[in-house]
């Protein structure tokens, strides 16, 4: 600990190479008895004190600045890193059972966690795909007895909120529209259509990429039937025809089980194409293909008892500086005054405002995050398991590490070799895991309930890849940390260090090569003799 601290301090003051030589001087002094007893606690303190003295002198004198690594030095570092990578590959190939087990554990857990993260990210974590999404809210009512939020509202409530509110820059209502069909390959297919009131595109800040948005004239009763279509439908059915404006869509008034209430039968003139980025509503499994204007019928503008249909979803955009709490209080006040005038209409219901993001993902947030946490724990357990495997392996390779240290490898170099091996294992695990994740995402999309919000947007994207890469590095680091902490590379077998130190540089290079090639190991002294003989015979 003290040595590491001293090394860190010196490296900052005088640069890495110079720091190593100073630490070498200090250790040599300790070994020669010019300081406290070797390996005692006092020796650590002494080492740190001397390092502080050196660093302070260097700073005070101003003579030494940590030098930038030279080109040759950088090249050497790259080369030694390449040696580590090569050794790691050879080492992993030499233990196929260990490699297979570790790879299997890592790829399964990384694959599972990446797939789950993809779903949680798309469904819960990601912001709504609109401009300033925090301003988007859903307006509805809450049952005072149960606290249940009621999304679907009658047109009468919507009309009164529009007339009396002053906290929203825009407010709009939507309701599903049935009856739109197109013929694709001779088969009639239903289109997902939405009827929208004035202000809908202001709330979501969307505008057509081709053509024009709805005008005030389109929202008059008995006006010409017009429609906006999605970019997807434009490509799919109209072949991305730039002259699509003016072409028509057909709707039928057939009431079918499970389909939304149909709009009037007839033809609708296309006036524009919405861009691919505009997706509404965000919670549906299918994206909307057609938008048509919705005009509140006269019969639903007054609060009669017989003509109440709770079929509108109301969304709004908060004015600048207005909080959700203030908007909620405002809508509550409006509803309270309406309830006072029409007590039988509201009953126990009171107006309420909630964030659109919360409305979209609130139901599933808790269990989704729980799932993510569970997968995270499994990943942690897996990385600890792999760490234990590597620990067992490091113990078995203790002799090799001791020889490396005897040949002059620093503790960092030995630790780096293990780290590289571990990172390579986790990187390979991540790559295999990503393939599994792609498959897992498809399985999850098919298996999860259709009503799950934003399920159609689940995909393997840059965020997910970044998380997978981070997982890889953390797992690799975690797996390597235990063996690294426990490696006792500095403890050399008796007689080995002097024998190795006595070898000429060529012999040490030969030994390093033998290490990297994983040649069978004789005892240390026999090996040293053999190496010396080999070098002398060569020279």
């Amino acid at each position, binding site marked *: 600990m003290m040595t590491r601290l001293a090394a860190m301090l010196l490296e900052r003051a005088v640069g890495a190479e110079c720091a*190593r030589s100073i630490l070498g001087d200090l250790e040599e002094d300790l070994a020669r008895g010019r300081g406290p007893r070797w390996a005692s606690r006092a020796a650590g303190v002494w080492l740190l004190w001397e390092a502080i003295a050196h660093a302070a002198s260097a700073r005070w004198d101003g003579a030494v600045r940590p030098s930038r690594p030279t080109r040759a030095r950088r090249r050497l570092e790259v080369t030694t890193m390449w040696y580590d990578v090569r050794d790691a590959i050879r080492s992993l190939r030499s233990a196929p059972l260990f490699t297979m087990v570790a790879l299997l554990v890592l790829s399964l857990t990384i694959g599972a966690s990446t797939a789950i993260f993809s779903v949680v990210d798309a469904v819960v974590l990601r912001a709504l795909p609109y401009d300033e999404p925090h301003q988007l809210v859903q307006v509805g009512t809450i049952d005072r007895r149960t606290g249940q939020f009621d999304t679907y509202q009658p047109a009468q409530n919507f009309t009164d909120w529009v007339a009396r509110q002053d906290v929203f820059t825009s407010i709009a209502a939507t309701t599903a529209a049935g009856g739109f069909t197109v013929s694709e390959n001779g088969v009639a297919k239903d289109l997902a259509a939405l009827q929208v009131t004035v202000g809908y595109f202001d709330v979501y800040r969307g505008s057509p990429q081709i053509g024009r948005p709805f005008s005030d004239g389109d929202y008059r009763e008995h006006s010409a039937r017009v429609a906006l279509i999605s970019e997807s439908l434009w490509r799919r059915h109209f072949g991305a025809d730039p002259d699509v404006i003016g072409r028509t869509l057909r709707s039928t008034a057939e009431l079918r089980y499970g389909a939304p209430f149909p709009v009037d039968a007839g033809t609708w003139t296309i006036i524009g194409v919405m861009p691919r980025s505009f997706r509404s509503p965000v919670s549906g499994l299918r994206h909307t293909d057609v938008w048509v204007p919705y005009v509140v019928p006269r019969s639903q503008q007054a609060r009669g008892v017989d003509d109440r249909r709770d079929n509108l979803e109301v969304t709004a955009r908060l004015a600048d500086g207005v909080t959700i709490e203030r908007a909620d209080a405002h809508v509550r006040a409006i509803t309270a005054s309406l309830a006072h005038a029409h007590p039988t209409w509201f009953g126990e219901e009171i107006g309420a405002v909630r964030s659109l993001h919360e409305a979209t993902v609130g139901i599933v947030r808790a269990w989704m995050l729980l799932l993510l946490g569970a997968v995270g724990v499994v990943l942690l357990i897996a990385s600890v398991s792999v760490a234990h495997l590597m620990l067992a392996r490091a113990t078995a390779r203790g002799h090799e590490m001791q020889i490396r240290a005897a040949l002059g490898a620093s503790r960092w170099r030995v630790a780096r070799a293990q780290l590289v091996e571990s990172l390579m294992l986790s990187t390979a695990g991540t790559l295999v895991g990503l393939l599994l994740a792609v498959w897992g995402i498809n399985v999850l999309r098919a298996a999860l309930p259709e009503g799950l919000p934003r399920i159609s947007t689940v995909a393997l994207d840059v965020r997910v890849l970044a998380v997978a890469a981070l997982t890889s590095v953390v797992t690799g680091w975690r797996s390597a940390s235990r063996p690294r902490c426990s490696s006792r590379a500095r403890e050399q077998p008796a007689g080995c260090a002097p024998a190795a*130190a006595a070898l000429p540089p060529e012999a040490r290079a030969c030994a390093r090569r033998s290490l990297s090639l994983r040649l069978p190991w004789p005892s240390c002294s026999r090996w040293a003799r053999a190496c010396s003989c080999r070098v002398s015979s060569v020279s």
Partner: protein
Amino acid sequence: MLPRSRLSPPLRDFELVVMLAVLGLREEAYPLSIRDAIEERSGRKVSRASVFITLERLERKGFARSRYGDPTPVRGGRAKRFFRATPRGTAATRETLHLMHAMTAGLEEILG
């Protein structure tokens, strides 16, 4: 008499001592051996840090040059940093010593 511009010695007192040790140790001059040599000759304790910083200064001035040797186990696998005097360093040492001799000439009675 030395030229006016050369009156200030190129080496300070401890720099001169360290340079003399480097010259004396030849190929074996590294901070510990330099310190040991100074302590042995002078009989006074010298700190490692002062030797180190003086060597750094000498290298910066171009009077010495350093290289790293092979790592050794007794030093925890770390290399020694060997110093040797450059021709400029040798000349500076010679000049400083010459100045001292010139200034001490005739003072033997006082200095002993």
